[in-house]
């Protein structure tokens, strides 16, 4: 970057441009948007986990007050290219293609699956009428346990699939069997790793309106990937791309589940088309528990082999993944778990056999961390096991296995899901851990622990390292346009759910155009603003959209300078862009605002544009990262455990992370804080439960427990900044790193607090009841 571009705005704690509206209650979330003549939708959902849907009687519902329409699969089918939503992401290992259906037709495969849609004048009327729809369902035995699902002769979760093995694949490299034969020490553990849902405070919502004048279907949706939703809607309804617009307005948190394109995302727009009126559906919290995708159970059975110094020889085992009843997002979850297990360590040989089981539950799709916390948990806990068994420090075992900075870029023997080699681009893992241990006072902890124990308090410390592949491609887009008004409009395919995306992208743009970021209008999450885009997933938007914005802003800058050179009759090298205007160096009075330049580039009938220039002061860029860039970090947790009650108190939580160059430290810290707290929920609280028939047993709060302010310590965050060579801003993603190592660090601390009792925690979340049971058995 040249000095002029050395964006003054980057790396600074620029206040968020999003806040002004949100603080005043002037956000525009889907549920806040009202269209003239708008109707309200309510879905009728399967009350059972598995059954044959023989018939559906909607006579009473159709006659209920205010009802404008009741739609079943049969009624929607003629208007759809397919009742199946074409959303599955390809993976060779998938044996059964089970797309979600817009509405279930003859078989229901999870409790909460939508079978009909009622539209009425008010939400109350729609809800009342939906309760009148009579379902004739013959219950079938539900498949709930992923292990039992794969037993020979197990009932089938879907009658159309010959068995319940959705996918089987192996992640492996190196000489595994010889490594285990040669290793002086082999330890085995089994883990049951539950992870809960996204639990954005705003539920899902869809509002669709068809404008007959221009045949435009506009869909406002609380979505993380509006461009993808648009593609699915176009395909399902057979509409041309220029006749569908999807807008993600203000979105009240995403955390993964909102990047799925759901049946409701197609059913509601279709109802709006059929009724000729706008239709809005706002998910209620019970539906969110039953019908919004979440993570769930993974069962791991692994062995680790090491030498007497604690150096890893190999790791092998099996992973059984509870997939749910259909496939809205491929098998990314167990894939991430398997590959992220490696973490920042040298693991010479590895073999994990992964089985993905169909069950009669809502689909499991990524939530913050996306399967990586589980893989990290297994590796970190096996390292702790080695340390404890061999009488070594847990920190020392890690030190002996960390990838040294001299090995960067480090080519792991694995491939990522796009088939490319998995290469850690940059980072100093040992230094990162050393920082964390020093800041946490790890050295003194044993003394503090002894003192505490003498005072009757059981305190413990836990440590966990992680890496995260961030900035996933294939691309993200940015377009900048400046009109005669001088207003800078930055449009991007990135989408925002609270990260501060608009602020950080405005910072990048403002740095290049030398202006206040607050003067830039950022349009995110609107397919009408920019033709292509991907959106929010895989900790990517700051760096990937940021790089696109950087390039787009540079193009606009170059063009403005070139155009101004004609207008001011000066060489482009003699011009500078200062405070949003072009001027001749040394002659500040001779200046042209960007608006004036734009005016000229807009053209006048019959007059030529300045030579060598195309119309418009604008640019459009799709930036494609060449590979994932790997962020890393170390978390240290200190806890106090009450052995009587099993209660766990977090005393301290410290993060040292490296996500490359920080674009806005406040925003990065916000991502880490939210991520850590999500991880604390994962470790201690959050659990989605089902009854013996597969009906969700957690349908509200506090049955499902979320982290709340009083149980949390101040979380201390320290930054390291190793710029990645893979990104022109040097930035890596930061959205999920907070969650990835949290459960491992906390569980390690709990075990440590209870020494000398040698308990081994192998199930998440660690509830007081589970902990008491472990202590009773110890």
């Amino acid at each position, binding site marked *: 970057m040249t000095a002029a571009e050395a964006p003054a705005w980057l790396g600074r704690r620029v206040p968020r441009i999003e806040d002004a509206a949100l603080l005043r*209650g*002037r956000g525009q*979330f889907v549920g806040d948007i009202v269209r003239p003549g708008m109707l309200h939708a309510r879905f009728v959902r399967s009350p059972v986990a598995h059954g044959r849907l023989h018939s559906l009687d909607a006579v009473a519902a159709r006659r209920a007050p205010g009802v404008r329409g009741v739609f079943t699969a049969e009624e929607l089918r003629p208007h759809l290219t397919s009742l199946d939503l074409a959303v599955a992401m390809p993976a060779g290992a998938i044996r059964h293609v089970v797309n979600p259906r817009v509405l279930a037709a003859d078989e229901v495969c999870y409790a909460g699956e939508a079978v009909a849609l009622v539209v009425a004048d008010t939400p109350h009327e729609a809800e009342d009428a939906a309760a009148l729809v009579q379902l004739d369902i013959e219950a079938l035995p539900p498949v709930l346990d992923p292990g039992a699902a794969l037993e020979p002769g197990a009932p089938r979760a879907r009658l159309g699939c010959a068995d319940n093995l959705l996918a089987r694949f192996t992640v492996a490299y190196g000489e595994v069997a010889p490594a285990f034969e040669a290793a002086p020490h082999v330890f085995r553990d089994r883990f049951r790793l539950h992870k809960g849902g996204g639990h954005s*405070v*705003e539920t899902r919502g869809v509002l669709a309106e068809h404008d007959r004048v221009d045949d435009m279907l506009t869909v406002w949706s609380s979505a993380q990937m509006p461009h993808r939703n648009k593609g699915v809607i176009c395909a399902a309804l057979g509409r041309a791309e220029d006749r569908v617009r999807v807008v993600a307005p203000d979105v009240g948190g995403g955390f993964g589940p909102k990047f799925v394109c759901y049946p409701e995302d197609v059913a509601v727009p279709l109802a709006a088309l059929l009724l000729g009126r706008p239709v809005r559906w706002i998910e209620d919290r019970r539906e969110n528990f039953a019908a919004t995708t979440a993570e769930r159970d993974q069962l791991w059975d692994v062995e680790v082999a090491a030498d007497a110094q604690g150096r890893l020889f190999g790791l092998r085992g099996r992973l059984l993944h509870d997939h749910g009843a259909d496939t809205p997002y491929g098998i990314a979850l167990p894939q991430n778990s398997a590959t992220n297990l490696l973490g920042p360590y040298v693991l010479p040989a590895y073999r994990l056999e992964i089985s993905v089981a169909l069950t009669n539950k809502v689909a499991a799709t990524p939530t913050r961390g996306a399967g990586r916390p589980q893989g990290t948990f297994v590796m970190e806990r096996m390292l702790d096991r080695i340390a404890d068994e061999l009488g070594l420090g847990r920190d020392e075992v890690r030190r002996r296995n960390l990838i040294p900075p001299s090995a960067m870029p480090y080519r792991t023997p694995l491939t990522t899901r796009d088939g490319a080699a998995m290469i850690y681009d940059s980072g100093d893992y040992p230094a990162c851990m050393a920082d964390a241990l020093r800041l946490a006072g790890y050295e003194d902890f044993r003394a503090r622990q002894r003192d505490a124990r003498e005072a009757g308090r059981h305190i413990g410390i836990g440590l966990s390292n992680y890496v995260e592949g961030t900035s996933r491609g294939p691309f993200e887009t940015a377009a900048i346009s400046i009109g005669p008004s001088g207003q800078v409009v930055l449009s991007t395919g990135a989408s925002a759910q*609270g990260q501060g995306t608009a602020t950080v992208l405005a910072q990048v743009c403002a740095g290049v155009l030398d202006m206040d970021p607050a003067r830039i209008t950022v349009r995110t999450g609107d397919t009408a603003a920019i033709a292509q885009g991907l959106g929010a997933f895989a900790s990517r938007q700051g760096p990937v959209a940021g790089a696109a914005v950087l390039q787009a802003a540079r193009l606009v800058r170059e063009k403005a300078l070139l155009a101004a050179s004609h207008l001011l009759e000066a060489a482009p090298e003699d011009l500078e862009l200062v405070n949003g205007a072009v001027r001749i160096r040394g002659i500040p009075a001779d200046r042209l605002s960007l608006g004036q330049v734009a005016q000229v580039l807009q053209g006048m009938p019959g007059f030529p544009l300045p030579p060598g220039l195309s119309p418009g002061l604008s640019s459009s860029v799709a930036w494609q990262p060449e590979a994932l860039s790997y962020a890393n970090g170390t978390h240290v947790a200190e806890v106090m455990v009450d052995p009587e009650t099993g209660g766990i108190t977090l005393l301290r939580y410290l993060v040292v992370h490296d996500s490359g160059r920080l674009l806005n430290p406040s925003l990065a810290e*916000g991502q880490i*804080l*939210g991520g850590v707290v999500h991880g604390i929920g994962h470790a201690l609280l959050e659990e989605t439960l089902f009854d013996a028939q597969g009906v969700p047993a957690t349908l509200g709060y506090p049955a499902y427990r*979320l982290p709340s302010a009083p149980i949390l310590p101040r979380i201390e965050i320290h930054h390291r900044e190793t710029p990645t060579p893979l990104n022109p801003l040097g930035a890596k993603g930061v959205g999920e790193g907070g969650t990835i190592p949290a459960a491992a660090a906390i569980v390690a601390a709990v075990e440590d607090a209870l020494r000398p009792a040698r308990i081994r925690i192998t199930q998440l979340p660690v509830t007081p009841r589970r902990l008491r049971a472990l202590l009773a058995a110890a």
Partner: protein
Amino acid sequence: MSEERFPISVTVNGEPHRLDVPARLSLADLLREGLRLTGTHLGCEHGACGACTVLVDGASARACLMLAVQADGRSITTVEGLERAGRLHPLQQALADHHGLQCGFCTPGVLMTLVELLDASPSPSEAEIRMALAGHHCRCTGYQGMVEAALSLSGGAGTDR
């Protein structure tokens, strides 16, 4: 079939309203749909998330659990009523300064609770602030920025009593 309606008079953000409301209409729906004050958000509609928190005669209440008819004769303050003459309430400004909001969905309810807290006890401790926030879900921020925002306005800033 039209639902029976009941007359109420209610003051919202200083403005008096006379309205006829159905018996089962919640205060939240009255504010959001009836008065188009959509800053009061709904995250759970069962009293657990706190997103719908408003002040009723100065005391925080969950607008999803309260019926509109129960607001008869009361004075309601919502997030839209915090700004004074175009200036943010100090707590709104503090929340922005301390990165106490991300998606902003929980924010209006959090603001009302913290306004009540700081009105009642001008120098709350961190523990008191955290207790006051116990009834709010925020999935984005980890609550830390909110705590810091409230502490920055607390007379006894930083001291745990």
